[in-house]
């Protein structure tokens, strides 16, 4: 074991000029990620960032770690292959709502279903930025964009619901402007063993400015969001005077703490094996409900690559480590012998079988 080197944020800043639009929410995410990295205590060379295509996907170029800027939607597949080759690496997937939920939706689902030990960070700005402003799979129904001048006709994906539906073992949400909260969530996501999925509400200043305003504007945000904390009741509001309880219709219900006792409120359990409550929380959306921020689910399951290694170890224990000759000879073999090297006459020998004579 080599000496533990104390790294700082600067060690994770690459020599590349960051090229996002001034004021983009991505800057804040990059800054928090670079700040969190030293806290992981993982040497820089063991960290890999893999991205797809889109504004967010430029991210790996700016991290002084190993990295791949891959192709649209496919980052989880590269990350999976990399973890199979080297399970010791800490692998992040940086993606966006278009990259992860549209063109790469299938890969995102299956990476989570397998519980590959990768950390998926999805920047959700509900718009296509790099291609200049078309609607995305998380755009709210009716969103008017260049490609939907009369408003979109599609239901939007809820990334947290999708992740929970795909059996993801760590599911969380944070906001680009909440630096402390984001840093905490990123750290926990990085430390989780298994697939982590973090949705970050991220503002696109150019094409979708203010899309998260209800949960980011200082004046209103405390009334429009609820911060999830394990083991604590769901309380929110500027004056912390509102809470969430399960109503008689088995739906969440916003109640006033003036009228309802705190003991009746829903208590958050991020470690619940069943994703049911987490899923219910994920469906809470503005304006009817406060938007939950924090960790929805955090459970421990065997990771995919651990399972792969286990099977290899078990097969090796049962059958012994394979040799090439054993592989070649794992079928019926016959030997052709040179009877007499001079006249080239050959004789066939049947070591295993006799002629029916």
């Amino acid at each position, binding site marked *: 074991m080599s000496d533990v080197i104390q790294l700082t944020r600067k060690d994770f800043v690459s020599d*590349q000029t960051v090229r996002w639009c001034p004021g983009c929410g991505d800057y804040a995410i990059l800054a928090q990620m670079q700040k969190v990295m030293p806290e992981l205590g993982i*040497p*820089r*060379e*063991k960290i*890999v*960032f893999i991205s797809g295509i889109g504004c967010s996907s430029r991210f*790996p*170029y700016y*991290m*002084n*770690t*190993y*990295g*791949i*800027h*891959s*192709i649209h939607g*496919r980052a*989880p*597949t*590269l990350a*999976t*292959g*990399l973890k*199979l*080759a*080297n399970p010791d*690496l800490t692998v992040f997937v940086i993606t966006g709502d278009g990259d992860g939920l549209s063109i790469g939706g*299938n*890969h995102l689902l*299956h990476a989570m279903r397998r519980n590959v030990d990768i950390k998926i960070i999805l920047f959700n700005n509900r718009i296509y930025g790099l291609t200049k402003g078309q609607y995305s799979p998380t755009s709210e129904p009716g969103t008017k964009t260049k490609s939907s001048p009369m408003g979109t006709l599609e239901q939007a994906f809820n990334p947290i619901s999708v992740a929970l539906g795909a059996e993801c073992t760590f599911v969380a949400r944070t906001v680009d402007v909440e630096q402390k909260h984001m840093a905490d969530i990123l750290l926990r996501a990085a430390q989780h063993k298994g697939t982590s999925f973090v949705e970050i509400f991220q503002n696109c200043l150019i094409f979708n400015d203010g899309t998260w305003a209800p949960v980011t504007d200082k004046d209103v945000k405390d009334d429009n969001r609820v911060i999830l904390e394990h083991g604590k009741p769901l309380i929110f509001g500027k004056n912390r005077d509102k809470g969430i309880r399960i109503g008689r219709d088995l739906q969440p219900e916003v109640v006033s703490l003036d009228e309802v006792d705190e003991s009746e409120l829903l208590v958050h359990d991020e470690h619940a094996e069943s994703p049911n409550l987490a899923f219910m929380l994920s469906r809470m959306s503005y304006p009817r409900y406060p938007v939950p921020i924090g960790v929805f689910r955090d459970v421990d399951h065997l990771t995919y690559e651990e399972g*792969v290694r286990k099977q*290899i170890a*078990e*097969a090796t224990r*049962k059958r*012994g*480590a*394979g040799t*090439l*000759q054993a*592989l*070649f000879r794992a*079928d*019926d*073999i*016959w*030997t*052709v*012998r040179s009877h007499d090297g001079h006249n*080239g006459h*050959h004789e*066939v020998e*049947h070591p*295993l*079988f006799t*002629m*029916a*004579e």
Partner: protein
Amino acid sequence: MSPSVRPVHVEEVEEVVIRFAGDSGDGMQLTGTQFTNTAAIVGNDISTLPDFPAEIRAPAGTLAGVSGFQVHLASEDIFTPGDEPHVLIAMNPAALKASLGDLMPGGTIIVNSDEFTPANLKKAGYDRNPLDDGSLKGYHVHRVPITTLNRHAVEGVEGLSTKEVDRSRNFFALGLTFWIYDRPLDNTLKWIDEKFGKRPEIAEANRRALLAGYHFGDTTEAFQTRYKVKPAELPPGDYRKVTGNEALAMGLVTAAHLAGKQLIYCSYPITPASDILHTLASLKNYSVVTFQAEDEIAAMGATIGAAFGGAFAVTGTSGPGMALKSEAINLAVVLELPMVIVDVQRAGPSTGMPTKPEQGDLLQALFGRNGESPVPVVAPASPADCFDMAIEAFRLAVQAMSPVILLSDGYLANSAEPWHIPTEEELAQRFTFHIHHPTAAEFGNGHGFLPYARDPQTLARPWALPGTPGLEHRIGGLGKQPGTGNVSYAPEDHDRMVRDRAAKVARLAEFIPPLEVFGAQEGDLLVVGWGSSYGAIHQAVDRAHFRQGKSVGAVHLRYLNPFPRNLGEIMSRFEHILVPEMNLGQLAMLLKATFLRPVISMPKVRGRPFKISELSAKIDELLG
């Protein structure tokens, strides 16, 4: 020769081609495989051609549901499963109808006469019973009531339904064929014991069926002749039978072993490549990792990720999967990471004919991606050659730091032939890997490290692995600066990178063996082939040149990009160039474009391999 209860004529023959044909549920692949295994073990040279429908259970008794297995065994070197079966074993009318056109004139037909019922005849599209209407006059027909005889033989085995009893019919047919060709039963009896150990009643039924078929041949007067095919004179050594897919899987494991690498095979199930995945999935005690991805694209992406991580990364697919992978293959091209992409070609376009072979993906492999995307392409020539070329593909991949495409096809994949088992020493002699993963110490603690610095000899970039301190770097699909790999859209940078990648692949020509000409070294006609048509071309040229004295030579391209460096010179020694291939002239187009000379294209797109006779006829037509 085993003793017989009655005097029979024994004829010694050099070769025989047998086709087993029946319903896809009749177990014909199994029957053919068992016959082949025994023939191989007693020392015959063998070559097989399975031919089965894509549907697992097509409607019983119909032409669509016919499954066939052709085996060629001989006492001399053979290269193909045989043009025309000498013997056809037809388990129902549809099997007879589907195969009769291929049968040699005057050949032998053994039919299960019980199945020639009005209903089955109708399903096969026969208006009249071909056994009675004189249409089979030119053949030796043996009507054997296999179903009835088999039921008698299996009578008394407890716990079997009639359906299960009838399912052992194929072993009756196999037993009879073993008798006719004087093959021992031991191997199949042993196999039955192993396979059905947990179902003793089924084992017993199959055992009885096999012996009943054998004894039927022995006692009935219908069969007057037995045939003996002497062992072939193969070079000394240990042999086993391999299909192309088996050989390919073993080649991949061997390459990983020789290179000191972990094999990671990422694939999505697709006919006819899936058997490679199945074989490798069962080799976990060889540290083989198999990853069944959610789709073809994911399989390619995971392959790239595994290559970045330092594994021997491989994906396997067929044409439709290649189409899906092409974007990610392009990423691999610009990331410049070593990996192997196996395309077991099938008849296209689109879904096409999944179980039928074609060589239609050559141009796709070379050019089916956006931009200038040079990828080395290799193609094995025979089932056993799949072993060598799998290793060779990885050698080139490492040497050029590039994905390499290996083009097999459905014919190679499922056909079998004897394979000379190499010793460890032979392997070490034939294949060497030079793999180097740099460390920071080589670059002044990493400060001088350039991820896209090129080796002056090979033009390859370094394979620096994540986990290596001090060599942290980022690579990606965007245009990049030479050396640093940093994003760049500068005209001179793009120009340099495009040309360097092309030059790097072209330079592999210096590291691949020159072609050797078979037959005439110069003269009237050169036959240029690639892939699975090797056997038929070899035999046809052998006949034309060595037996008929014609001025014909042949070269077979196992490297299609780059071409072997002496190909142009060899072509210049011949007046005519003939290019037989299972497509509409893709290699022919490449040769014309590369060497600026006329070539005669001989296309075949029937979902069937070339026959020797077709090639002989073409050679005769051209040379008179």
